[in-house]
């Protein structure tokens, strides 16, 4: 074999490794969030694998740090249209993007959760329950929290909905801090079998620990 061939191979391999090593992978910025695809386009691109496409879209979108609200909600909406029975979009909305120091942003996300809850109340009530909790403890907006609680009582009446969900307003009006309320709600969700995914359990445990740290218990 000619030596220049070996040399070329070694040189090009070295150049490839150096090139990739020097280009650092940066965390994606808010400005990088692409415009969401129309739900029909996402369904078309999934070639019938709607369940995988919806969840992959959520794993993709959660890689963006502080995405802007309109495209974020567009992505969540598109994923819900692609697989309406997936809980992932509303989980991200209620437990990740709504828990924000920006009150206006939080309100926007909570209202999204409320709109989507109305389309399938018997399945989506846990996310509106969390929205009610956030409205009370983070936004300090008791009328908004009561509105969400009343919506659950009125609309989530299916056979799979636990009885305590029908008394959400009483739960909201109870005199307890956010940590106590969050603990009780998570315990109730676990008992009712609504939460059982190992990743979600891990996430909720971390959230409670963070809340404990903030409140100083």
């Amino acid at each position, binding site marked *: 074999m000619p030596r220049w061939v070996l040399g070329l191979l070694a040189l090009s391999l070295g150049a490839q490794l150096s090139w990739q090593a020097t280009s650092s992978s940066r965390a994606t910025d808010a400005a990088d969030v692409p415009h969401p695809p129309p739900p029909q386009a996402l369904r078309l691109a999934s070639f*019938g694998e709607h369940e*995988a496409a919806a*969840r992959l879209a959520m*794993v993709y979108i959660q890689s963006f740090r502080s995405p802007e609200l309109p495209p974020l909600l567009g992505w969540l909406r598109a994923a819900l249209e692609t697989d309406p029975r997936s809980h992932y979009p509303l989980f991200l909305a209620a437990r990740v993007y709504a828990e924000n120091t920006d009150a206006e942003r939080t309100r926007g996300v909570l209202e999204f959760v409320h709109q989507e809850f109305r389309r399938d109340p018997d399945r989506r009530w846990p996310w509106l329950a969390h929205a009610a909790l956030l409205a009370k403890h983070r936004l300090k907006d008791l009328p908004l929290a009561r509105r969400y609680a009343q919506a659950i009582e009125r609309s989530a009446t299916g056979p799979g909905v636990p009885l305590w969900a029908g008394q959400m307003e009483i739960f909201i009006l109870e005199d307890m801090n956010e940590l106590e309320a969050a603990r009780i709600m998570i315990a109730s969700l676990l008992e009712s079998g609504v939460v059982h995914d190992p990743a979600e359990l891990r996430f909720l445990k971390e959230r409670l620990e963070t809340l404990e740290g903030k409140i100083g218990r």
Partner: protein
Amino acid sequence: MPAAILARSILLEARRGGLPWLAAASLVLGLGLAAFLSQVALTESLALQAALVAAVLRACAVFLVAAQVTSSTLREIDDKGLELMLSLPVPRATHYLGRLAGFVVCGAALAAAFALPLLLWAPPAQVALWGLSLACETALVAAAALFFAMTLAQFVPAIAATAGLYLLARSIGAIQAIATGPLAEATVAGRLAQHAVDAVALLLPRLDGATRTAWLLYEAPSALAYGWALGGMLLYALLLAAAGLFDFHRRSV
């Protein structure tokens, strides 16, 4: 029986050609990807794993069957083995259907192997329904690949035609929904486009209703929906086999 001998030789060729290794590599790819992505998922990690594994393995099964059928058939044609076989006192239909039967059994074996890991996430009955549907889907793809390989006699066009038919069949439901959606134009051109899409849909199997991941994640399909999906695929495979036989009988080899 000549057909059984032909089918057996197809299976031997697949085994010796490395198909089991490729199947194993597909399993590793699907399971590895699912394991990686489920680590970053904040919720529905099990559902994400199941959905991803099912989607990847379904695509791999279809690709492996199409590639195996096309390469095997074209090798036979290029090595003049087909001419030698046709010189024997064996009816052409036996030759064609024997080959097809071998490829269908290959596809069924792949479907069974790929359905097994899904038992980690879904009940056995639902996995069995999914696996049986995948076996019918691979049978359809085998019939399509054999037809295109015999007719076009070139590897790239045959694979491209098979892939095009398959992908169009999986997406025609979504295309029809877009064409008839509320935002579709109510003009003459819009209506013509709708009719054209509907006409194309008449000539395709509805693969969007078959081998669905929803059967694994949520609930099993109704008997009617399942029977309709499988019946449609088997009917189309029969149509492709008949078309292939028609073309094969016309060949002046």
